[in-house]
Structure formats: C-alpha cells, structure tokens
C-alpha cells in the first residue's frame, strides 16, 4: 500500500511530475545521443587510421625504430609474406619499402615519405584505390607512375600525368633521383598520409636505389577482426625474429583517443546527472513541503519514520523508473533513425573532421550495455536525490503538523 501511496502521490501534481520526468527523459536521451556521437566520431578516427594507414599489425627490423630507413630491412621477407596462408586470421598482407625523400615539381619541392608498394597487396590492405579522386591506380602510366595526395598535388601545383622528380638516398647515402609521372591523385581518410606520403611501385624504387625486389622495411597485416589481435601477434612473434607490433603499440594515439572519449562521455554524463540530481531534489523537496501537514498526520497516526523515508524514496524512484525508459527509447529511436537514413550529415564540418581523420557522416554507435548502465546510473541518481527530501520528511514533527490543522 505504501507503493500504491507513493505512485498516487506522484500524480498529485501532474504538471510538476511531468516536468521532472521530461527532464530525466531528455537528460537520458541527450546522454545516449552524445555517447553515440562520441563513439561514432572516435570510432571513425580509429577505424580510418587502422584500415587506411597503420593496419592491425606491422613488422619491422628491431633496429628500424631507432633509425628508420633502408638500413634496417626486415629479415626473411618471403617468410613474412607466407603468414597470410599460415595464419587464418590474416585478411591481407603488404610489404613496403619506406624511405624519406623529396618530391620536386617545376613550381616547388617538398619533403615527403616515399611508400614503395606492391599495388595489388596495398589495395587489399589499405583500400588505397578507393581514395583515388583523379587519374587512376597505377594503370595508365606505364613507366614510373606515382600517386600523390590531393593536398601535396595542390602544393606542388601538379595534375594527373604531370611529371615530378623524386630524390632519395640509397643504402650508401648516395643521392638518387628519378622522374615519375602522376598516375593518380588520392584523398585518404588518414591525415598523416594526406600530409606527406606518396606512393610508387616497389619495383620502380628498387631500380632507382639498386635494391633487390625482396627488400622491404615494413610489412603490414590486415586482420579479419580485431578480436584476434593479440593472439595473432603472438603467433607471428613465434615465427619471426623481426619486431611485431600492434597498431596500439605503433600509434599510442589510439589509446589516447579512446581514453579522451571515455573521459568526455563520463564528464557529460556526470554534468547531466548533476543537473537531474538537483532537479529531482528540488521537485521532491517541494512535494514534501507541500505535504507537511499530511506527513505530520501520517506520523501522528503511527507511520514510522522509515516508512515515510521509504515512501519518498519510492516516489523518486518511480518518477525515474517511468521517465528513464522513455529517454532510453527516444535515444534508441534517434539512433535507429540515423542508421536507416544514411547517418547524420555533418559535411559542413568535413574539413575540421578530416583534420582528425574523422568522417563527415556519423553513424551513431552505442553498446547495448550502455542502455542498462545508464538506467542504473539514473536510478542511482534518483536514489541519491531522494535522500535529502526524505530526511526532511522524516524530521517533520507530527505535533507541528497537527498544530497547523
């Protein structure tokens, strides 16, 4: 009956209850929206870096980190290529020869990183052909084709089929230069690649610097899924004496992005919950003060303090129990709407988002467990919010209430 009394008490002031319930529902909805938004943004940044730049796992010579360049090529590269057939979790493999150099056009020259690649393998690992926005992917230019990012092409003031000169150092530190023709211009989802990487064929660079076709200083592996990352790494380590690293070890910014996102989500949740907390306290305090006489009467006729406390807590709890699922459902439906209607288009901010490797279209993402967790957090907030008004109610003196009768 106390449950029934608490439930009926909620509806005594419909407008007030509706306001606080709306506040809870909107708060919950906003948290879901923000969490989904953050997940989508950080997910896109991580996914783009992972799929189009770092890949899941990379292998280098152990000396490569201290002195990146041609001096530390991977040991036994043919064996590394065979991993694809030996480890079932590997989706694709590519070998690269990476060297720092200069690219010169008739207008200017720039310092860049040269990625000498096998076009077919690179396409399988980083999906590079999908980013070509002009020209083609090493098809129509037969001799010394090169791929430039849109950004570099603009800086160099070159177009498709323009000629550029690439200058690199060979193993003996001799300067080697070669003329290349722009086969394609790409716009990658990785800011790092857009800012300073050019692609050319492995065979062309090998000829230029007199290295064999089997010379590589980096191998990148795309896995079928992220779950097997550590297991696959360990399997690789068992099969090679090169240095095997996951993308998290190569680029700590992945962890930083995720931690930053987690902190942001927590801060937003805490702010919204604090707002709800004060809203709940205020509403319930008003409800208690309005019912001073009635609560006093209940105490006078023999209702124990603990039951008065329980009644107020139940009222608060039920307000949240009704409104939180409304907010959760609204959040869920908002996400479904964006999923079914091509995501949230933030093209007007595309430039800024691309600076961080994000996508202009957001597809809200949220783990199912977040709904449950949020429900628990709201319930906890409601319970905390109920304490002060409930203490106020409990401390009312029945006699003082009786005197007001």
């Amino acid at each position, binding site marked *: 009956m106390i449950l029934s009394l608490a439930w*009926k008490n909620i509806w005594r002031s419909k407008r007030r209850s509706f306001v606080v319930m709306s506040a809870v529902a909107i708060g919950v909805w906003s948290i879901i929206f923000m969490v989904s938004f953050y997940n989508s943004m950080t997910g896109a940044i991580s996914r783009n870096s992972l799929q189009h730049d770092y890949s899941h796992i990379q292998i280098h010579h152990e000396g490569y980190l201290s002195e990146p360049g041609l001096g530390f090529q991977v040991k036994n590269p043919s064996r590394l290529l065979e991993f694809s057939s030996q480890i079932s979790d590997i989706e694709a493999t590519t070998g690269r020869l990476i060297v720092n150099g200069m690219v010169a056009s008739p207008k200017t020259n720039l310092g860049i990183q040269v990625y000498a690649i096998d076009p077919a393998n690179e396409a399988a690992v980083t999906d590079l052909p999908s980013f070509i926005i002009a020209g083609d992917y090493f098809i129509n230019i037969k001799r010394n084709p090169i791929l430039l990012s849109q950004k570099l092409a603009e800086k160099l003031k070159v177009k498709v089929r323009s000629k550029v000169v690439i200058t690199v150092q060979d193993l003996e530190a001799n300067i080697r230069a070669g003329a290349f023709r722009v086969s394609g211009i790409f716009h990658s989802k990785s800011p790092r690649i857009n800012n300073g990487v050019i692609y050319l064929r492995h065979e062309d660079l090998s000829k230029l610097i007199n290295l064999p076709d089997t010379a590589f200083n980096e191998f990148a592996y795309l896995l079928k899924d992220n779950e097997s990352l550590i297991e696959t790494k360990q399997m690789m380590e068992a099969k090679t004496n090169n240095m095997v690293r996951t993308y998290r070890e190569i680029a700590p910014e992945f962890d930083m992005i995720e931690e930053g996102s987690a902190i942001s989500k927590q801060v937003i949740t805490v702010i919204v919950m604090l707002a709800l907390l004060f809203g709940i306290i205020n509403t319930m305090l008003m409800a208690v003060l309005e019912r001073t006489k*009635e609560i006093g009467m209940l105490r*006078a006729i*023999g209702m*124990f303090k603990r039951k008065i406390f329980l009644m107020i807590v139940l009222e608060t709890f039920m307000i949240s129990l009704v409104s939180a699922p409304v907010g959760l459902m609204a959040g869920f439906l908002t996400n479904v709407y964006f999923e079914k209607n091509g995501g949230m288009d933030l093209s007007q901010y595309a430039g800024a988002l691309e600076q961080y490797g994000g996508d202009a279209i957001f597809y809200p993402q949220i783990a199912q467990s977040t709904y449950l967790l949020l429900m628990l957090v709201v319930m906890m907030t409601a319970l905390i919010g109920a304490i002060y008004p409930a203490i106020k109610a409990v401390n009312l003196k029945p*006699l003082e209430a*009786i005197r007001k009768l």
Partner: protein
Amino acid sequence: MKVIELKNLSKIYNPETIPVRAINDVTLSVKEGEFTAIVGPSGCGKTTLLNMIGGLDISSEGSVEVGGVSIQDMNESQLTAFRLQHIGFVFQAYNLIPVFTAKENIEFIMVLQNMDAKTMQERSDDLLDRMGIKNQKNRRPSELSGGQQQRVAVARALAARPKFVLADEPTANLDSGSTEDLLDIMAKLNKEEKITFIFSTHDQRVIDRAKRVITLEDGVIISDEHR
C-alpha cells in the same frame, strides 16, 4: 478500568526565557467507555492536553499513563508504535490521504499495523457500513462532503482498534446536520462497543451529548462534571 491516568501534569513553554504554563498541575483519569469532552476558551490548554495524552507532546512535569503504561520516557519510535497500536486520532480538518479512496484511507492504518488482508477487508467493510458510507467507499476525500470525510476519519481512527479515540474539535468544520449524524455514530459506538472518546471542543452540541465534561481555564481544571 482506567484507560488514561494523568498525575500532576504540567506543560511549560519557554521554561528558560519567559515561562508559559499551558497546563498546570492537572491530575485526571479517564475510564474505559467514557464519552468525555474537554472544554474551555481558546488558549486554555485543551489541545496541549490532548497532545500529551496522545503522545504527540511531552509534559514538563508529572506523568501520563495509558492503559497502565507510562509514556513519559518513551523514545520517538516507541511513541509512534504506541500511537499506532493504542490511540485513534480524529482531526478538525479530517486529514485524510487525498489520493486514497475512503476504503483505502481506513485500510491504510491497518496496513501500518501489518494486519492480514482478509481481516483488513472485513474490518474496513464493517466500519464503512457502521459509518453509513458504504456507498462512498470508492470515492476520494475530494468527492465526499465534510460530514462524510469526518466519518471516514472516525472509521480510520477505529480501524486500528485503539484503546481510545482522541478527537480535536471534530465538528468544527461540519454543518449541524453532519454534526448530529457524526455524534450519533460516535455515541452509538461508545454505548454499544464501549469505545472511549475524548473530545476537545467548543461545540455546545458535543458538550450536550458528552457524559463527562472537563472544563479547563488557564491550564487548570476548574470543573469535572459527570452526567
């Protein structure tokens, strides 16, 4: 059998600044089945006396025994339990729970007493019947007249099977018809079931029906008339 026994009871407000003796050395006993009215001018101490009998206020001096049990030294929780088990309250402004129906208002106090559902059901139906408000049992207080609300309040007070009922100006807000009806019901309960009623009142109609009239003035009993 004495239901209430007050010995040298005093209530002093502001004892350390400007002491005001609301009740001054009152000695009084009420037997089971009495129909007692405490009367006197406003401010004479009627409500204060009723509050001390009901365990809502603590005396400054003297003792209060209810059913042979001293309530002087009880803590707040013990007093609450005592009120729940032994005292029925009827208030001037009815003070029903507005969100509950008449029946629920009556049953609520039995819920607080952890009475079983069947007994509770039977007792609330019986009380509604005796109060003549059976047809209004599913109505909320706002849908009842003042007289009907006060009957629900009396039924609620009786639902807990108290040792006695304390009624503070129970007819103050009622018209004459409702007052007579309510007094008829309470007199009948008193006569047939020996329920003890103690009223504080200004209402001559209540005074006329009382079997004992205690007159207070300045916190002192100036007359105690048994009829």
